[in-house]
């Protein structure tokens, strides 16, 4: 069977599976809709968290990105895993003990103020929308490459599917589809990795093959460093970013991960505090499987690629080369008209390769069977859809629960709130789909900055809310507002050219916009602590609540209210 038939088959089966799960796990109360009834097992929650967390970017783009960044790619590897340590140690157990439905819920109650709640709602919506638009686009791109439909048709199919299980099943539907999606995406990611690792190094385990040696006896990484030197690139194992920037980006991503509402909310779905702790551990295990394999794939793909194209005749290029050339993701311009490909650093370079194709093209480059190629397409879709659904739920809950129920119509019945939650989900799907079809130029540029925004706004407010009894609403609100505005300002100035723009030479302390979340977070902490010490203590009952969340006993189910 050809790739196309395989793709239709595998993608069709996985989609039928998602819809089946959605029908089976319909939500019948707001508690089902927001936190899956609070009865998810820690292992299943870990898997769902991993799928929720690993987006199209992790699955499709990250390995490719790293293969062009070399050592510097570590910012993503450490940044997107280290945050789980913070989450497990500093946030998840306490938020689970607090036991409400959303992050703005915690902020609103802990800081006894609807102003704080509203600021948190706005932050949650800004963060989630910058993130979700990229996911819908990812769905469209995978569809267009593998099913040969226009990108927009792909976005519509993705919307219809997410619509079905997010609107119908809420958190309950999403959780169990995410478990299935995790299995599919990890299988799809690992199979080609095993094959390629074995082909290159004779070792099936990619993490071992990464440090293994090639057929000629030299170590893979030494070979790669050598090839890089020869072609004039920086060595693969040493970076080109400044140390301060690597530090700032890594920290911003870690802290941002711990502050992302769609990740935090997953820990409300387990029954006990104990489960929240271990669940974060399982989530990281499932994530680490992909995150330790990705850099190995990067090195394999980089080696394969250089070996294939280096000083080779253009006419001898294999079929995958021209396949991807027609999509415009590989371009070759024979500048010196010698018919050979010069792939080097600097002006003589004749070959431009889009980093996104490294994972998608990898099975073809390594000449793997057609079903593996189709599997990768299904995996990419699973990754994009699971993340999109989780984000849409955060947006819908922010509107129906934190805005309408908590602020506008407090006497809403559970049934009515559930209707609002579904309306919110529908609206969010439509907006996300709109951005997927008409991607505003800034989306691609700002998706990575969603982490900076989360780091600059939520993280300090939640941490201080748990660990600093003296923290009051004045401090937290001031900190969140200053933090997110500062981050937005820096992002607009240096990324989008607003406020007079600026070049990397003008970066504050040499920190790029991607890493600026670290600085904005520190400013948030500073402002919060200063303001809180100059304003009145929080009321007795709030101090009592902070005391209570420190001890696990009596967590029970996520409380009704």
């Amino acid at each position, binding site marked *: 069977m050809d790739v196309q038939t395989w793709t239709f088959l595998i993608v069709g089966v996985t989609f039928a599976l998602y819809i089946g799960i959605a029908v089976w796990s319909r939500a019948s109360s707001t508690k089902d809709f927001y936190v899956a009834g609070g009865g998810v097992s820690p292992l299943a929650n870990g898997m769902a968290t991993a799928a929720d967390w690993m987006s199209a970017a992790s699955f499709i783009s990250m390995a490719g990105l*790293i293969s062009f960044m070399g*050592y510097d*790619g*570590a910012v993503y*590897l*450490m940044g997107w*895993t*280290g945050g*789980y*340590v913070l989450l*497990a*140690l*500093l946030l998840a*157990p306490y938020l689970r003990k607090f036991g409400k439905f959303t992050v703005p819920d915690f902020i609103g109650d802990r800081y006894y103020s609807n102003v704080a709640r509203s600021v948190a709602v706005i932050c949650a919506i800004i963060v989630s929308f910058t993130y979700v638009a990229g996911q819908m686009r990812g769905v469209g791109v995978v569809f267009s490459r593998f099913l040969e439909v226009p990108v927009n048709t792909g976005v519509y199919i993705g919307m219809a599917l997410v619509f079905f299980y997010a609107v119908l099943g809420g958190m309950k539907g999403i959780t169990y589809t995410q478990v299935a999606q995790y299995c599919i995406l990890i299988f799809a990611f690992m199979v080609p990795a095993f094959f390629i690792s074995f082909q290159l190094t004779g070792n099936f385990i990619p*993490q071992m093959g*990464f*440090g*293994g*040696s090639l057929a000629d006896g030299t*170590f*893979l*990484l*030494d070979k790669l460093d050598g090839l890089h030197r020869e072609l004039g690139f920086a060595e693969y*194992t*040493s970076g080109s970013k400044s*140390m301060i920037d*690597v*530090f700032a980006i*890594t*920290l911003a991503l870690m802290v941002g991960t711990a502050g992302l509402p769609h990740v935090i909310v997953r820990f409300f779905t387990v029954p*006990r*505090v*104990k489960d929240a*702790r*271990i669940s*974060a*551990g399982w989530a*990281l*295990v499932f994530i*680490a499987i992909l*995150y*330790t394999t990705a*850099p190995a794939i990067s090195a394999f793909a980089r080696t394969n690629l250089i070996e294939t194209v280096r000083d080779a005749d253009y006419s001898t290029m294999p079929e995958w080369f021209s396949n991807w050339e027609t999509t415009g993701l590989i371009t070759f311009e024979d500048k010196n008209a010698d018919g050979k490909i010069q792939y080097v650093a600097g002006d003589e370079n004749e070959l431009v390769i889009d980093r996104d194709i490294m994972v998608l093209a990898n099975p073809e480059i390594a000449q793997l069977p057609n079903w593996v190629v189709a599997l990768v397409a299904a995996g990419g879709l699973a990754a994009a859809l699971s993340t999109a659904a989780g984000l849409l739920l955060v947006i819908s809950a922010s509107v129906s629960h934190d805005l309408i129920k908590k602020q506008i119509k407090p006497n809403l019945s559970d049934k009515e709130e559930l209707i609002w939650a579904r309306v919110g989900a529908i609206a969010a799907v439509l907006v996300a789909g709109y951005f997927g079809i008409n991607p505003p130029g800034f989306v691609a540029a700002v998706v990575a900055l969603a982490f900076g925004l989360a780091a600059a706004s939520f993280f300090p407010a939640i941490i201080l809310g748990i660990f600093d009894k003296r923290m009051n609403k004045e401090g937290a609100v001031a900190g969140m507002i200053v933090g997110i505005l500062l981050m937005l300002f820096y992002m607009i100035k240096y990324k989008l050219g607003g406020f007079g723009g600026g070049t990397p030479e003008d970066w504050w302390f040499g920190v790029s916009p991607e890493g600026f979340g670290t600085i904005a977070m520190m400013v948030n902490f500073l402002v919060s602590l200063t303001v809180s010490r100059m304003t009145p203590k929080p009321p007795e009952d709030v101090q009592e609540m902070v*005391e209570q969340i*420190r*001890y*696990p*006993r*009596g*967590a029970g189910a996520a409380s009704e209210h």
Partner: protein
Amino acid sequence: MSDNKMKAYWRRNLRYLLVLLLIWFAVSYGAGIFFAEQLNTIRLGGFKLGFWFAQQGSIYVFVVLIFVYVWLMNRLDREFDVDEK
């Protein structure tokens, strides 16, 4: 539970956090970033050590840290009788 006992529980918790987060910082920012270049002179099979910490090792340590934390806290909860039934 008495106030003193609760304070003791919280102090122990904070001490665990401090130690675990120091390790967290040391492997990722220490070994993976600040001292990566020095560590790169040491080899671990085909890896330079600093590079290995940055792209592999720190992630393994993160996983271990969480499970150690879970074990420590479950033990602490039982010791102070604040665990969930």
